[in-house]
Structures are given as C-alpha cells and as structure tokens.
C-alpha cells in the first residue's frame, strides 16, 4: 500500500471517527447524566436510545436557521465554523497508534495551543455579532476566561516537554515507555485537566454559557445547524482534551495485549466519561473567582512545576 493512500485512509478514519464520537457523545452524555441523576435519559429511539443521535441530527438540520435582523451577519455566520475547524485541525497531530497520525509535526504541541487559542475567536465573535446583551456578556466572559487559561495551559505542558525533550506527540508517547508522565508530572496533569475543562467551557467553567445567569450566553441567538456547530464543537473539544490527556500523561496508545489504537480510544473514553462526571457533580464558579483562580493559583503552580521539573531534570542529567 502506497504512502499517500495510507495517509488518506488514516485521515478519513480519524475525521469520521472524531465526528462520530462527537455526535455519539450527545447520546452518551445524556445517558450517563441520566444514570448518575437517578433518571432514564434518552431511551426510546433504538436500542438503549442510541438512535437519539440520528433523531437529534435530523432535528438540528431541519430546524429553521434564523439569523436575527440586528446581528452582524457575516461574523454571525463565520463564528460557529471557527470552533469546528480549529478543533478538527487539532486532531491532526494526535497519534492514535505508532504511525497512525495525520501530521507528525515537530511542533505538534505548539500547533495544538495555537489552534485552541484561535477557537476563542469563535465564542467571542459569536457573542459580539449576536448584538444581544446576554451574548455579549457571554462573549466577554469567554475572552477573559481563555486569556487566563491559555497561559497556564501551555505552561502546564512544559514539564512534559522537558521530560520528553520534544514537542512532537509521537516522541512524547515513546518517551513514556518506562513510566507514564502522570506520575512524574502529576501537578502538570492536574493543571492541564483544569485548563482543559476551562478550554471546553464546561462546568465548573461554563461561564460563557451559564444558563441560569445568561440564558445561553454567547449562543443565545443561534439556532439550527449554527447552534449545532457550537454543540458539536463542544463535544469535539471534550474528545480532543481527553485524547491529549491520554497522549501526554497516560502513555497514549501504549498498553498490553490490545492493539494500540484501541488503547488510545479506551483511554480517551475514560477521560470523556470523567468530564461528564464532573459536569454531573460540580457547581459553577463566579466570573471573578474563575479569573483569580487562574491567575493567582494555577499560574504560580504551573510555574513552580516547571522550576521543579527543570531542576530535577538538570540534576539527573
């Protein structure tokens, strides 16, 4: 099999896999929340309600896609696609097995950080273009939140980079042959987990959306498939962060017996479920608490983690 064909197959498999996972998560999240909240969740369409995804898709595609007359039309339309595009692009650098990767970039991690920074535009612009006060507040909250959380998200990964000596995700996975990085980099793992939660704007960091306060925040005015893109974008974000946690801290595709891609998928799903469990458990922070939590606690911790990791690395070498 020629290299180009193989690449195309990998690309297609990852693309379809990601989209299918994101769609499936709609069902999975509702079922799991139902389980944890002593209720059923969607259980009517198909076995265990699994066809609910199809039903939701049909609904969201056929709903009226309304653009408010007062909105800034071009920006209003572009905004939701940004989040989908940047998140999908981020998947390019994730290795799902030895050599199963769309782009084996040397600057893999930096590429991910760049993409996640871009995705902020989606939310901030959506809030701005809607010309609705609730959306505006949501967009502003998103911008401030991302600004704070991007910083230590990058810093929290520095420890991993020091240990692996590379930005390349395949190298990072290979560097974990002896020991998964969540052991030496436990603080880094926790910080990245929290930053990841904030990145995906889920409880306790769902302030840009904050149903009880801002109705639906930045996507209050969105309907139909444009809303669907935010929705799917959020689930893809969850999948992405879970896959990254698995790759960076839990040995990626490595594991005994089972084929490598399966290990990767299992690990990713464990973290997806963990994310959903967090949503079922925690209340939401307040805006100023979230910001000061980021700048005053997480950032110094991330810096401390770098200093200690660096010192230990120098001492060992």
């Amino acid at each position: 099999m020629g290299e180009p064909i193989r690449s195309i197959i990998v690309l297609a498999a990852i693309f379809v896999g990601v989209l299918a996972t994101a769609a499936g998560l709609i069902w999975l999240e509702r079922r799991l929340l139902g389980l944890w909240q002593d209720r059923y969740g969607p259980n009517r369409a198909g076995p265990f309600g699994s066809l609910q995804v199809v039903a939701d898709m049909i609904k969201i595609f056929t709903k009226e896609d309304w653009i408010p007359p007062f909105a800034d039309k071009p920006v209003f339309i572009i905004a939701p696609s940004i989040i989908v595009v940047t998140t999908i692009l981020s998947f390019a650098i994730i290795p799902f097995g030895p050599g199963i990767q769309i782009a084996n970039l040397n600057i893999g991690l930096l590429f991910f950080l760049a993409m996640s920074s871009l995705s902020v535009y989606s939310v901030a612009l959506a809030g701005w273009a809607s010309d609705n006060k609730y959306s505006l507040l949501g967009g502003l909250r998103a911008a401030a939140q991302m600004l704070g959380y991007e910083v230590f998200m990058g810093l929290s990964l520095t420890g991993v980079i020091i240990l692996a000596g590379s930005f390349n995700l395949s190298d990072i996975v290979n560097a974990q042959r002896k020991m998964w990085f969540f052991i030496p980099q436990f603080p880094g793992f926790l910080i990245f987990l929290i930053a990841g939660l904030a990145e995906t704007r889920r409880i306790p960091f769902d302030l840009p959306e904050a149903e009880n306060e801002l109705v639906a925040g930045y996507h209050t005015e969105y309907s139909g498939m444009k809303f669907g893109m935010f929705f799917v974008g959020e689930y893809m974000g969850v999948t992405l962060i879970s896959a990254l946690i698995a790759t960076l801290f839990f040995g990626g595709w490595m594991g005994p017996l089972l084929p490598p891609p399966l290990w990767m998928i299992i690990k990713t799903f464990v973290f997806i479920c963990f994310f959903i469990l967090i949503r079922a458990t925690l209340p939401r922070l307040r805006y100023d608490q979230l910001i000061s939590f980021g700048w005053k606690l997480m950032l110094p911790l991330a810096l401390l983690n770098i200093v200690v990791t660096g010192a230990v690395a120098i001492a060992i070498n």
Partner: protein
Amino acid sequence: MDLTTDILQDLQNLFGEWILSDQTTKDDIPTVWVTPQKVHEILSYLKTGISKPYRMLYDVTAIDERLRSHRKGQPGSEFTIVYHLLSFDRNSDIRVKTPLRGENPSILSIVDIWQSANWYEREIWDMFGIKFEGHPHLRRILMPPSWNGHPLRKEHPARATEMGPFQLPEEKAESLEKDLQFNPEEWGMKSEGQDTDLMFLNFGPQHPGTHGLLRIILALDGEEIADAVMDIGYHHRGAEKMAERQSWHTFIPYTDRIDYLGGVMNNFAYVQAAESLAGIQVPEKAQMIRIMMAEFFRISSHLVWYGTFAQDLGAMSPVFYMFNDRERVFEIVSAITGGRMHPAWFRIGGVSQDLPKGWDRLVSEFIEYFPARLAEYDKLVMQNPIFKARTQGVGTYTLDDAIEWGVTGPGLRACGLDWDFRKKRPYSGYDQLEFDVPVASKGDCYDRAVVRVEELRQSLRIIRQCLKNMPEGPYKSDHPLATPPLKEHTMKDIETLITHFLSVSWGPVVKPGESFSRIEATKGANSYYLISDGNTMAYRTRIRTPSFAHLQMVPYISKGLTIADLIAILGSVDYVLADVDR
C-alpha cells in the same frame, strides 16, 4: 394582656386627642383608630419613640368600607388604611387604623419611616386608588400600567363576565408593549456610572434564573450591578378580590395556589382565621393532622428550594435527587389527601377526611429513609467548596436590615434571631411538640441555606412526634359552622338536614368581625386578615405573604455584586412568584 393595655394607655396619654377609638377584634391584637393627620407621627413614635419598639412594619393594607354594614363602634370611614406592626421585644403586634374619606383620598407616605412601606403603598394605590404623598414612585405594581380602575374597590367588577369581552387589537397590543418599555430616569436610575456608561439589562420576565415571571431591570457596570429595579405583577390573579366572591369554604382551594409550593400550609393560615371568626374549636386530632401535613409541605417546599438553589449555582444533579425525594413526600400526601401540590384539604373546623388506614406505615418509612439522604446532600451541596465560595459572604444583610424590610422565616433566622412563630406564638398545638429553631449568624446566602437544611431535619422530628402521638377522636369539629358539616344526624331529623343543606349550598354564614391568623409558613410569616360582614363571603381578605416582603429587599442587597451573585441571592431568598403577586 398587660402589654396590650399598656401600649393603648401609652398612646392615649401621648396622642389622646388624635386617638379616635379602640377596636376589639377576634384575634386580640390591640387595634387603635387614629386620625389620618397624625398617623405618620404615631407610627414613627411606635417605631423609635417607645421602649421595646415595634420595629417591623409587618403589613400595610386598606379596606373599602363603603358597603360594609356592621361597623359598630368604629369611626366613620370610606377607606381605611391598616398598618400592622410587630415588636420582637414585646412579642406583640399592634394594628393602627386610620379612616379616610372621599373618592380618591390621600395620606402621607411612611416610606421615610420604613423603606419596606414602598411596595405596600404602591399596592394600595394600585388596588384602591389611595394616594400616598411623598412616595418616591407611586405607580401601579401588580396591575398593568394601562389598567382602568382599582380592582379592590367595591365598584370594580370581580368577574370577566362583568367586564365585556376581551379584545386585543393591534394598536392596543402595541400600546401595552410600549407601557412596558423601561425608562431609567423615571426610577431615578442613572445611565452613567463613575467613569463609565451603564448598560441596562432586561432580566426577565422570561429568564431561567428568576424562577417564574419576574422582571428585574439591571443597570450594569461590566458585570457589576450598579442599580436594580424589580417589576412584579406578572403572576397576579386577584386572589384577594376572588375571596370577596367565594364562600368561606370555596375559597380554600384558591389559598393553595398562593404559595404553590406550600400546599396545605396556605389553607392552614386561612382556615385558622376563619375558625377564629366563627368561634370554632378544632379537635385535637385535626390539629395534629394539620401540623403533620404542614410539616410535610415544609419538607417538600424546602426540597424544591434546595435543588433549584444548587442548580442556580450550576450544579445540575442535586435538583433531580431532591425532586425524587419530594415525590416520596407527595406519595404520602396523595395517600392521605388524594391531591399532590394543591390538595385543598383543610376545612373550616378540621380537615377533609380522617387519616387512611396504613398512613403510619408510609410516614414511618419516610422517616427511616430521609435522614440518610440529607446527610448525602450535605456532602454534595453544602460542603462543596465551590458552593461555599459562591454563597458565603454573598447577599449579606444584617438583623437590623432584615427587620427594617419585614423579613421573616429562615431569612430572619439566618441573621441570628431565633424567631419562629411556631415557638413564639404557638398555634394548633405546636407548643406540645419538641423541636429546635435553627439559627445562623452571618445573614448571607450560605447561612440562609444552613437554616433551611436544618429545618428539614426539624420538620422530620415534628412528623415523628405526630406519628407517635396521633390522638384519637374526630377529624372535624361538630360546630354548626364547620364546613361541610358532619352528616351523621341529617337522616334522623329535619332541622339538621336543613342546616346541613344550607351550609353546603350557601356555605356558612359567619358573624361580623375581624380576625387575623398567622403561621410560620415555608418561606416566612404568612397571614390572612379576614373581615366578615355577616355574610357567606368575606367582606375583605388580606393575604400577607412572606415572598412579597423578601423580594422587595433584593435590589438593596444585590447592589455592587455581580449577575452571578444576583442569581445566588434570588435562589437563597426562596420566593414563589405566585406568593408575591397573589
């Protein structure tokens, strides 16, 4: 009764020539008539001048006296304003009445004495057309701004059929919408902050965070609330007006829907007032059953609060657990009463039916089950660090603030005053039961939650005692005015049959008089002030609800905080909009 004569004597000495007369009412609350010119001064004296002052303005309302025939001993009046004050130091109430004359009379506002008088006076203006001079924003509060007439005046129609068909042509719809446009200057709001322009945010009436139809207009500096104005009345159904067209008995189901989470708790206050007018002594068993059902509804209402409060702060699961538990309460309620949220089960003179067979098993099962759940909720909600961060030190008010604004119930106890009407003015045999009154000290959102959570445990304790000590005996009084009357003897002699027939078809005829009954409802002090003119219907029914007073205070405590805090405050205040608007 010493204090009662004391205060009347005191007033007589100081304001002798302005005191028109005393009035005796069935509720034994000292009631004094004073001339309108001196009301302001006398009220001010009662609040600040005397030792052990009457610090809380409990209620202000009015009576349209023009059609009232039994007014013996009362000064001539067309519209009477009734000020109801409460003293915590004396554990005593006083009612100050003042007679007004003329089609559209006016009187001096007392907003400068009590800030909480603001909404009460607006309500009187709205309902009776009585003007208050010096009131900062005397405008309609419950009715739409374009409403014609003042509904609680006797000449105002009570039924839609008396008013001509409802029509909503386009121009009317437009003008109605225009009326709702908010003009900040009218309310004394500024559109500029210190160095910034303020953003006005229309919060509600349809909003997921307001728990019903409530509109708040916020002036925001970023996310900080610079000013807030409440707009209520979207849930107004005219319950007080309906009371004037329903028989004493048929009004009971309407009371259920005042605080729609409180169920029979509303019946409780109403039937007690009616019984005191009719002079009915309620049998012991009925009293105990009433207490038990009321406490079940306290649990049910607090569970809704608990879950929704957690949800307001973003925790999505607790509300499901708590509604599941509430469902267990409703299973018991429906086994006993046949209804769920609005069983309308209390009757004048007792309760509707005897307890069904097997009720004790249901109740004891719940008593076994519930404490473990409460312990779990403590871990899930009350001890959660994020929950604490969101609620501690947020929405704080002092005890003085609380008294000034007429706060009762858990909101008052969270400020450190162990004031519970079940203890301080025991009714229906609460004095025979053992329970503690939970208190907290800081008066913030968290402390209000602490008090309510502990109340859940205390209610369970009360129910346990009811279960153990449920007396034998009748569930309804055999007094002739108890409604519907017991039927036992109707088939044996014609007189009883006739009485029964009349009492069921027309309803009981209650002797003229005035009475007031107050209970410690789920959200605070709920009371009914009934005036009978010797008819089958009440001449005037005043429903004083805790939510009204509590909601009025929200702008005061939310200034300088953020939108997220406002949501926490609204959740912690625990109001029901039906209870606010009536």
